[in-house]
């Protein structure tokens, strides 16, 4: 079965190719891209499209590779032993499975999302090399080898905050989601808001790309912010004319707060718009 995007997710040709190659060869796929370009959504949509169960592992700065496999809950065992609980004698009672174990143990091929792998410690990816390559790991406490029944499709996302080690990269397919152009963007919006008025959409997209072009913005608005903004515009029932900025009294586009997330950016934007209005 090939991945071709879904009803709610528009995938470009190169993205589809990367996903299909990774699924066919049963190797991890590393996804990078600007924040808000749908990296995390990809795994959810792939699972939906291929009808596979999804396991998610959201990595934080404190995450350890071991937590993805399993954790030995020593503290509760200790507590139980002090209370004289009978469960104490079987160490397996205190082994807590991680998402990787769940994905390996699945009865049919699964999809595993390892989200924001770059947030964790620098050594984190290195600690997962064997697990991702051979898809097996050893549980020392119970002397048991866990091996994947079916190799899951693993999708790893990164925001580029840390460089990933070469050995890790070599085991993955790689895809960089670039910011969608206008045409793709129209398709994306269409998928999310099918009944959005055509003219409103066009005006909104123009405003959106204009804002992205403004030099010096700290955080450029991305796709997910555009979608939020459109949601607001729809809810407020704003007409295309208002958007086009016929209304001289209003300086910035309505509800621009959804697009510009940074106070300095809003100030900068206001100043620029004001200057360009005066120049006219």
């Amino acid at each position, binding site marked *: 079965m090939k991945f071709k995007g879904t009803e709610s997710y528009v995938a470009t040709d*190169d993205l589809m190719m*990367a996903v299909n*190659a990774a699924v066919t*060869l049963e190797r991890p796929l590393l996804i990078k891209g600007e924040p808000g370009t749908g990296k995390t959504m990809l795994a959810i949509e792939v699972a939906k499209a291929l009808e596979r169960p999804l396991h998610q592992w959201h990595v934080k700065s404190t995450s350890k590779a071991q937590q993805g496999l399993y954790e030995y809950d020593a503290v509760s065992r200790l507590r139980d032993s002090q209370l004289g609980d009978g469960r104490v004698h079987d160490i397996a009672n205190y082994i807590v499975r991680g998402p990787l174990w769940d994905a390996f143990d699945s009865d049919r091929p699964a999809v595993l999302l390892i989200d924001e792998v770059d947030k964790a410690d620098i050594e984190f990816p290195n600690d997962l090399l064997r697990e991702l390559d051979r898809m097996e790991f050893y549980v020392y406490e119970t002397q048991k080898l866990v091996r994947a029944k079916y190799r899951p499709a693993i999708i790893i996302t990164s925001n580029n*905050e*840390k460089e990933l080690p070469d050995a890790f990269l070599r085991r993955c*397919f790689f*895809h960089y989601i670039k910011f969608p152009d206008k045409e793709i963007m129209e398709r994306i919006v269409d998928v999310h808001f099918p009944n959005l008025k055509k003219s409103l959409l066009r005006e909104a997209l123009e405003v959106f790309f204009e804002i992205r072009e403004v030099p010096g913005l700290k955080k450029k608005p991305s796709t997910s912010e555009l979608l939020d903004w459109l949601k607001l515009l729809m809810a407020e029932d704003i007409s295309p004319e208002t958007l086009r900025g016929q209304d001289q009294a209003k300086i910035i586009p309505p509800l621009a707060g959804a697009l510009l997330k940074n106070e300095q950016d809003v100030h900068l934007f206001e100043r620029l718009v004001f200057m360009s209005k005066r120049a006219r």
Partner: protein
Amino acid sequence: MLTDFFLKLREGGVPASVKEYLILMEALSKHVIGGSLDEFYYLSRTCLVKDESNYDKFDRVFGAYFKGIASTPETLLAGIPEEWLRRQAELLLSEEEKKLIESLGGWDKLMETLKKRLAEQKGRHQGGSKWIGTGGTSPFGAYGYNPEGVRIGQQESRNRRAVKVWDQREYRNLDDSVELGTRNIKVALKRLRKFAREGAAEELDLDDTIRSTAKNAGWLDIKMVPERHNSVKVLLFLDVGGSMEDYVRVCEELFSAARAEFKHLEYFYYHNFLYESVWRNNRRRNSERTPTFDVLHKYAHDYKLIFVGDATMSPYEIAYPGGSIEHNNEEAGAVWLQRLLDVYDHAVWLNPTAEERWGYYESIGMVRQLMAGRMFPLTLDGLDRAMRALSR
């Protein structure tokens, strides 16, 4: 199979490994793609390139390598009836172009020349398809009868779209020698991270707790440790005004990235070169100055020193007392720089002027010598090298 392509990629600076090449072969053998070059481009990119900053290099090599392949005419052309080729071309050429062809001796003559060219080419270059492919000097290009036209004869028009993808070189600005955004700077600065446990003990040290509990005959004995955080300390000296005006933006970016990245960041400004005092606020630079000696005494030797400046000035400003353009300095700038370097072992100089122009300024050479060669350009790549030098 495709080994040449792989080797060309490595020559072109794409760090692809044998393992990745084998994965590509595996993908091909499992029929992940059909026969189109377009698909092959995407597949090979996802297999072989692991960083978006290498996309542009990949595009260039791919373009160069497959331009030849895609327009290899000899073998394919032989099997195509000339009549049919002509019809295709006529569909494609405009009236003017057709007239031009007529004026040059007509279609037959043109085909004649083409055939001759091809034969000649076999002899001269091995498989020299590129000869026709680039076609810049060949008369075919001049007619507007370019290799694209030949390719349509081969029913390979689908390639043209693919060619466009890599010829557009969309990822040009992701190459790390060009663009420098705050986010990228932060990533580069992260090289300098050094985690250490300092301060109040706030985290449970599980290992130690278990160990001491066991020793304690099973009675809980809880141990705590301080949390880990980035303990790198940085002293940043920034050149302002004068010739640095051109580089304000890049310096601002570096500064804001550094502020976000380092918990212990102390910064000072100077003008052109370092003398007996520096300042923290450019607006009050004349009233509030910090003597450089105070800086030396206040910040311990484990601080890492980063100078940012273009180091382009008159050599007198560095080497002679009284050389400063702003005031009469008692001691030469070089003496002050040396004092700083004596205290702080880890120091680099970041220079926003392009590296290839360094040779033209005597003062840059002098500063480099003072810094013992630890001067790096203010590009991502340069920052990376600088951070490596600092963490050594």
